[in-house]
């Protein structure tokens, strides 16, 4: 008896189902119509139809960030695939597990500049973890299984698969085999930290007088926040999070001293600058953290734990490199600490904390609510109060992003979802939609600005179709605020193309998409109206908050300075 035969399109869908995929985000077109036809005839995998492929990638990305699962995208060849590029790059920079299935013209036409042919594997090569061309129909399931394995293990990242149309069509049939337990001779991410390095790291940590823990997005990805918190408490060390690492330890934990870097807190950057040992965990000494690398923490011994060896000693030299999975290495560090009977020297720690508390007193990312206009920071504080700090906050890019990072202390990992590495405006709304799909019962906020929201505003239509009642809070400052801030500080106040003339009426716009629109213009109505917005559970609410257009984000590192050279308000240095 011959085995059952399937088309490539059916194999794609069967493979996704075998890998427990519940949702895929996409948009149809010529080369993937067979896949859409196969999707139509089953119920395992639900397809979410977006309004622009870029949004599909961000939705899949938001879904992946909130759940830890692989986000899956489906796009047609040519323009569909190229529309995914920004979303792929966004996921790549933040190490997000994603698989992008792209159509391709039939193998017989590849290379002929056929209609809607682009070499998407070539276009995306510098921004993917890996990519695959399929040329044989029976290979499809295992290529998809491999793509999932690569995307989700080691340092996660996006994987692109190109599927030529002739492999998908009923004219090419094959048997379906899938090996979900993937093994590859060329890809074996290391797991355990080298025991010798663990010993060295513990020695450095326990003999440090001025220790700081600097943790990043790697802790979130590794689901290692429990272990991280244990370690911090055991060491009684101050801890700072990167923009990507927020929620790695609770934002209200007594050892937490705020975000570091360009718009980090004074105490975080000062503590880094004065530390004698820095324990870097799943962070990558990004230029938005270090400021001028030549002046970066010259006296500190650096222990750097990361799953990706290329992140170690790339911008800042590590004295004690440790390569391994964070959840494993953190346990190794805790075990080794336990074996040494370590207790922090009470006096030394007390002295160190005294210094840190002095910096805390200098300015804890402050602002003053004065005058008629609502300060944007005040909106975030209100948002925090009303959602009791439990919302998923998905951000766009600009001043509003930094205010949210500074004024919403995240209690848990995966609660803060933003494009940190690429800084993609237009990320916020689709990402929030992906999160809402995964957690329909939770408050999901899209914090955005009048500029960013217009980069994927069309997804309001998708929200209606799939009933995704996210709360959009737009800090409307009638300008590209972050650009304007730089122009104020660096370009003599010349506002070249940074203000937004002819903004739409966002309330009416939301309404025309079938949602609730709301505007807040006065400070005294801020909390009431926001409370009202969050009380509406089954409809999307777009809250257009008119905020002070002159507000700047402070603190801010001074260009080319050391990590702790900062402006703390207009014209005042720390």
């Amino acid at each position, binding site marked *: 008896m011959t085995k059952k035969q399937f088309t490539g399109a059916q194999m794609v869908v069967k493979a996704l189902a075998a890998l427990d995929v519940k949702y895929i985000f996409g948009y149809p077109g010529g080369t993937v119509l067979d896949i859409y036809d196969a999707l139509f005839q089953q119920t395992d995998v639900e397809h979410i139809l977006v309004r622009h492929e870029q949004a599909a990638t961000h939705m899949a990305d938001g879904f992946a960030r909130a759940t830890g699962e692989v986000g899956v995208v489906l796009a047609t060849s040519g323009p569909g695939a190229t529309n995914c590029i920004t979303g792929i790059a966004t996921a790549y920079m933040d190490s997000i597990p994603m698989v992008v299935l792209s159509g391709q013209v039939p193998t017989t036409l590849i290379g002929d500049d056929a209609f809607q042919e682009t070499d998407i*594997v070539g276009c995306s090569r*510098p921004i993917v973890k890996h990519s695959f*061309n399929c040329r044989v129909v029976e290979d499809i399931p295992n290529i998809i299984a491999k793509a999932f394995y690569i995307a989700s293990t080691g340092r996660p990242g996006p994987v692109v698969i190109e599927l030529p149309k002739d492999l998908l069509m009923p004219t090419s049939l094959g048997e379906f085999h899938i090996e979900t337990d993937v093994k590859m001779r*060329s890809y074996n991410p290391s797991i355990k930290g080298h025991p010798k390095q663990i010993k060295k790291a513990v020695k450095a940590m326990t003999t440090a007088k001025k220790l700081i823990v600097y943790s990043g997005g790697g802790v979130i990805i590794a689901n290692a926040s429990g272990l991280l918190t244990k370690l911090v408490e055991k060491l009684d060390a101050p801890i700072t999070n990167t923009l990507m690492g927020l929620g790695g330890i609770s934002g209200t934990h007594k050892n937490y001293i705020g975000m570091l870097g360009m718009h980090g807190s004074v105490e975080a950057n000062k503590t880094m600058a004065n530390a004698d040992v820095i324990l870097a965990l799943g962070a990558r000494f990004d230029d938005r953290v270090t400021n001028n690398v030549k002046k970066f923490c010259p006296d500190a011994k650096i222990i750097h734990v990361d799953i990706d060896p290329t992140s170690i000693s790339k911008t800042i030299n590590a004295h004690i490199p440790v390569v391994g999975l964070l959840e494993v290495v953190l346990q190794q560090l805790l075990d080794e600490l336990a074996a040494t009977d370590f207790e922090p020297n009470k006096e030394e720690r007390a002295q160190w904390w005294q210094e840190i508390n002095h910096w805390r007193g200098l300015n804890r990312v402050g602002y003053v609510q004065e005058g008629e206009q609502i300060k944007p920071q005040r909106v975030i504080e209100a948002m925090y109060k009303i959602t009791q700090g439990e919302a998923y906050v998905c951000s766009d890019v600009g001043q509003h992003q930094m205010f949210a990072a500074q004024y919403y202390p995240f209690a848990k990992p995966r609660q803060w979802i933003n494009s940190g590495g690429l800084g993609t405006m237009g990320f916020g709304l689709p990402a929030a939609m992906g999160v809402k799909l995964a957690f329909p019962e939770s408050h999901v906020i899209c914090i955005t600005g009048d500029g960013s929201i217009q980069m994927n505003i069309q997804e309001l239509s998708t929200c209606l179709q799939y009933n995704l009642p996210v709360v959009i809070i737009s800090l409307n400052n009638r300008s590209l605020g972050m650009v304007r801030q730089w122009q104020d500080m660096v370009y003599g106040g010349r506002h070249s193309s940074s203000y937004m003339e002819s903004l739409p009426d966002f309330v009416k716009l939301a309404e025309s998409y079938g949602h609730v629109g709301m505007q807040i213009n006065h400070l005294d109505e801020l909390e009431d109206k926001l409370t009202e917005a969050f009380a509406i559970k089954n409809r999307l609410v777009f809250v257009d908050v008119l905020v002070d257009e002159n507000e700047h984000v402070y603190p801010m590192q001074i260009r080319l300075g050391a990590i702790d050279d900062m402006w703390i308000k207009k014209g005042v240095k720390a």
Partner: protein
Amino acid sequence: MRRILAVLLENEPGSLSRIVGLFSQRAFNIESLTVAPTEDPSLSRITIATRGDDRVLEQIVKQVNKLIDVIKITDLTERSHVERELLLIKVLAMNDKSRTEVKRITDIFRGSIIDIGKQVYTIQLTGDAEKLNAFVTTLANETEIIESVRSGCVGIARGEKALRV
């Protein structure tokens, strides 16, 4: 410093372009690059000659290793090794004097004349980059170089050390 890196990788479509793309994307220098399948046709071996300080070199090795298709990479220049490059060069050999001289130089460098035209000699020479450079300079002093092509270097470790799966 000049380094020679040997890379063993899956012989898959696109794996070479990933290596080349990586070098240009990260502004790493490539002096020469050679690639061919090995005796096991599922594997390719690439030899890359590059330059950079220790930090850059460390990044190059790590970044290449990070590519999913790459199985192993080693820096041959770290220990004793053999390095070879092939040169084919066509020079003017119009009269007896220049013919004798070209032949003499070729013999001294242990090269061989592999083709003769009415007015040209084609010579083959293998050796390390330094030897090839010296040969070309010496020839250029004697006669006119019409055309030349170099393979880029390949290398292998001395002794028991081997790069294999």
